[in-house]
């Protein structure tokens, strides 16, 4: 598409959107402006991916929230954690039992002095901390006990501790914002049933 066509398409978009894009993105190329203006002008697409807040901190798109935290590690904390991660080959399969975790990652920063913990999960984490405290307390303390100041999963201070280290994302995109882990499991079961049915037909 030539510069001229891009300009024409841009001019066809609603004036209010064009104005907003023009004033904020003064230094962007017109191709960038067009792409962004087109997304902003599509109410359905935009609404499906609307970003709200997840409980106290963090961004949420549909049902899926993000949690990003950077926490100082105790001396040898990274070493202990790395031993465990190496033992399992970086595979945290057991976490599936939580039923709300889409993904999570553990990254060591600044010469193994800090831990970056990032996850995408359904809903809000805050209500489930109490369940972690009675269902998987040893595991939570084993992992996060390497963090400086970790109060323990059963401590009343634990929610504040996590919140204090949480850094809210400035932007957040989820491809299927309304498909929770439970919903994905249901769709998988449903698909398996459909596949069996189709196989039986043939």
């Amino acid at each position: 598409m030539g510069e001229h066509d891009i300009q024409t398409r841009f001019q066809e978009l609603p004036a209010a959107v064009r104005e907003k894009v023009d004033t904020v993105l003064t230094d962007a190329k017109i191709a960038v402006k067009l792409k962004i203006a087109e997304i902003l002008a599509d109410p359905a697409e935009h609404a499906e991916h609307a970003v709200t807040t997840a409980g106290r901190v963090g961004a949420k798109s549909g049902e899926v929230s993000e949690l990003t935290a950077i926490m100082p590690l105790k001396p040898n904390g990274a070493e202990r954690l790395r031993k465990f991660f190496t033992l399992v080959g970086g595979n945290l399969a057991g976490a599936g039992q939580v039923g709300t975790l889409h993904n999570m990652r553990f990254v060591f920063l600044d010469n193994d002095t800090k831990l970056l913990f990032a996850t995408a999960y359904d809903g809000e984490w805050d209500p489930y901390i109490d369940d972690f405290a009675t269902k998987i307390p040893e595991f939570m303390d084993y992992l996060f006990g390497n963090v400086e100041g970790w109060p323990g999963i059963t401590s009343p201070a634990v929610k504040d501790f996590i919140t204090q280290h949480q850094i809210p994302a400035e932007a957040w995109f989820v491809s299927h914002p309304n498909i929770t882990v439970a919903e994905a499991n249901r769709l998988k079961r449903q698909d398996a049933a459909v596949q069996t049915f189709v196989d039986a037909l043939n």
Partner: protein
Amino acid sequence: MELFRRRTRRPTLDLDDIQATVLRARPEPYFGTHAIIEITDQAAGRQLLRRLAPLVSSAARWDEPRSSWMALAISYAGLVALGVPQDSLESFPANFRAGMAARADRLRDTGPNAPQHWEAPWGSGRAHLAVSVYADNEDDWRGTMAGYERQLQDLAGVRLLSHQDFGATGFNVFGYRDGFSQPVVEGSGAEPLPGDGRPIKAGEFVLGYPSETGQPLPMPTPDVLGRNGTYVVFRKYHSHVATFNRYLRDNASTEEDRELLAAKLVGRWRSGAPLALTPEQDDPAVGADPRRINDFDYTDDPRGLRTPLGSHIRRMNPRSTKLETLSDVNIRRIIRRSTSFGEPVVPTVLTADGADRGLDFIALGARAIDNVEFLQSEWVNSGNFVGLGKEKDPMISLQDKGAYFTVPGSPPRRVHGIQSFNTLRGGEYLFMPSLSAIHWLAG
């Protein structure tokens, strides 16, 4: 029905210091009143506590019938009005301090349930003291009420904001037997009845004892204030029984089918008999038998063919249901002391008469506030935890346009047109102090 459990073990809890309502089952029939009081003068508020203290009953011999008893609970604003020291105030949990109206977001109290539509005095910050009288007969109810009213009468600086009488036979205004399923509190000495499950650690219901974590839950300070106390969640619901009846009428053509659908929504027939035990038709004998009414779990019904996964009682206490999300059902139990008000409506009535009727939902427990917030957001206004997506509790959620209820089966049946059958009219988070804490608060 005889609701009293027997005391078969020696209690290890400090029953003399714990308020009666924590352990004492509501009689059938029952009568009573909830009074809400504002404290406009600190000294008068303390004076009132001094006067009421001897009237507040303890949980001693909770297993013996008693004609009437009184309970007292205080909101955060009430503790402030009583002049409780700042460091004590700050030792209470954040959601209690914020109050129910401020937690509307977490409670999913939006739209018609939002605090701006509540009745006075709810949400005004002036509901300081809640005094409840429960009785098993009208005379003793009136007698106990008169005793309490005398204490209130000549005190300037405290003001009665609302006085709500309640009473029922044990059936709520929809016609269901209600209020009998309760957790067994470890250390109370109660004999578990068949289906009650294991006793739950006392610290889940009374502050100062080990909870399900093995440790006591956080408790306000000083010790005399927190120990043997608990939290109360009070939520006043208005019930739209005619709307409920119309939903049944619109979706089932015979009385038999209507009653089956009614049972599928709750998980129990109106008699109280659970679908788990009598899936085809009601069996009032089971509903009237405390040894059978709860004698089930959901192990042999994973798909909800008998008791729908989305029915009210299966959501509120999933028992052995395999949940989609990691949850500990033993920390989500609440003691319910709800009371029914107004005239019940029979199933044939299809138009609303505008009369006041409903349920004062009352939950007690050391985690009662956390739990009602958890239940409202995770188990009432969502279906995700049992793989039901956005489907909500059929009895107590705020239903969206186009909402439906799924009756599992082959094929499952989607019953469209479900409405919000109960609207929230107000409520508050309260602290139910021990008897010694009442004296401490009275100064």
